[in-house]
């Protein structure tokens, strides 16, 4: 059920070992005055660490909304979100920025790279925000480009890259400050199947290195490769199986 194979822990956690991600009763309501939309209607989810989780479900079932909340890109209307035991709802705005910078890396379906900057500068940006020196940044970025096998494209602009290459740059950027949680919202949605396979392979490698990877996907083949599948429907989790 909640086993994760890698660190040998099965079943319930010890009281003193806080889960990495712990959502309880998370609700999100969008109120546009005329219409009220309940995107999430009470989500409970616990992620212990070093897991590879696939989030599946039909469009509009709340998957992206939950990912945004976990990634601190949005705040829930109700419920509790604890990150490594700490209540995220109590974090200051600057603390949230720090979480997004160093504890979580987000990968988007449409890449979200800054088009006026080179691939290098895009990946460098989180390190800029983290206050690393010029040399530290250069070394780290060059290393990351090696990891995603794109070292020869560092000085190119995003417009000069293919979809698969852009997503690899985005993954490198997500990894810049060594977060241990990677969130990916339909990372292969805009890619052809070959590039898509390469990307998923990258995520598997990251998981094997000890990262926690949570990805939203429509593709059942990809979901099959995850160790745990969480199924969404109408704002609720209806299935959570390893």
């Amino acid at each position: 059920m909640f086993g994760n194979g890698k660190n040998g822990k099965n079943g319930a956690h010890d009281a003193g070992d806080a889960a990495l991600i712990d959502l309880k009763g998370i609700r999100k309501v969008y109120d546009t005055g005329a219409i009220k939309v309940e995107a999430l209607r009470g989500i409970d989810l616990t992620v212990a660490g070093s897991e590879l989780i696939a989030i599946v479900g039909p469009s509009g079932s709340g998957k992206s909304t939950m990912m945004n909340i976990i990634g601190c890109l949005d705040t829930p209307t109700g419920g509790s979100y604890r990150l490594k035991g700490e209540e995220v709802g109590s974090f200051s705005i600057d603390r949230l920025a720090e979480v997004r910078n160093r504890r979580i890396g987000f990968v988007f379906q449409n890449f979200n790279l800054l088009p006026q900057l080179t691939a290098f500068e895009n990946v460098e940006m989180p390190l800029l925000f983290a206050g690393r020196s010029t040399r530290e940044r250069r070394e780290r970025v060059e290393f990351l480009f090696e990891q995603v096998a794109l070292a020869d494209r560092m000085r190119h602009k995003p417009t000069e890259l293919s979809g698969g290459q852009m997503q690899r740059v985005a993954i490198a950027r997500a990894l810049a400050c060594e977060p241990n949680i990677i969130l990916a919202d339909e990372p292969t949605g805009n890619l052809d199947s070959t590039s898509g396979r390469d990307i998923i392979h990258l995520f598997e490698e990251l998981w094997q290195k000890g990262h926690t990877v949570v990805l939203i996907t429509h593709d059942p083949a990809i979901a099959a490769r995850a160790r745990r599948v969480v199924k969404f429907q109408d704002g609720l989790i209806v299935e959570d199986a390893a």
Partner: protein
Amino acid sequence: MNSLVVIAKLFRSAARIQRKRMTMTVAAIAWGTISIVLLLSFGEGLKRSMSAGWAGLGSGIAIIWPGETSKAFAGFPPGRGIQLVPEDVDLVVNAVDEITAATGEMRNNQQLVWGRTSLNKQLLGVHVAYGELRNHRARPGGRFLDELDMRAKRRVIFLGDDLAKELFGSHEPVGETVLVGQSPFTVVGVMQTKKQMGMYGGPDADHAVIPLTTFQAMYGRRFLSNLVFRASAPELMGVAKRRYNEVLGAKYKFDPTDERAMSVWDTVKTQATGRKIMIGIELFLGIIGALTLLIGGVGVANIMYAVVKHRTREIAIQMAIGARRVYIMGSLVLEATFLTFIGGAIGITVGVGLVQILAFVQSKVKSQAMQFLGAPTFSLPVAVTTVLLLGALGLLAGYFPSRRAVSVHPAEALRYE
């Protein structure tokens, strides 16, 4: 730092889209800056002109006219006329610590003749200290009256510059003989032209000055028309005035607090009031200039709001990868300030150029009003004020739009394609 490079790149792409709007805004800022530079420079010129004008009469002095008692004192009834004698000048200088120098004046209207020109002008008999106290400096080639003139009761005369021009035209007056009434006097000096604010008995440029002893010998006068003294420091003028009244009150038996016994014109106080008025005027000009600049600032804010809107997605991405609010707001404020300073630099350059041109014009126009106005001066305080205003403007114009930029959750901004 590389973040500056990144900011510059992001700004450049936004600038490309709004080229026309940016050009107009920069022009508006330049215009506002020119206004501020001109207004403040004229204010500074006026202030300096007034300062010089006050120094023209004399620095830190008080002028006394003898009066009439209004209070009974020491058995004397009120309504007694008080008269001063030349010895009182030495008396106050010696008896009052706060008075460092003093001079007496005796006045007369007299006919002055040279060649075919005959004028009727004010003639003053004064002590030697008058020259320094009342800012009568001699032009090169001449001198003011000295101790020797006083002791020997010499027939020497010092002319105001306008009087000298009227009497001698373009001829050099020093060394010439002038008839004062029927007596021949030698001209020893002509006054340097000066700006004079405040006068009594007419402008200094229009009168003639001879030694007091000579004056007494010629006209047999006993009493002074008035007395002038200088306090050791402007702050001590109040004490000097009080002590002066005490010393003379003791000699002439009048109540030291009797304001009518001696008429005192405290130029220190008058100058202080003048300075306060000047500060008020400068403030007023500064506010007008600032308001003009503000209009340009509104243009900058307008652009920044558009930049923020255009960059909603980019800003959201930056926040999603961990940018703190300070970074986003800071870079937007930097861009606004950059715009402001470009306009400001253009404005200052053109403004300073205009100031130089107008200063030249002012120096050439011979009207009294223009001379009083003074040459517009782009001084350091004016420059600093202008730069500070521009900086503040850039800061504000960037701050409010940037606050809006960081107020939205990244998820919302990223939602739209």
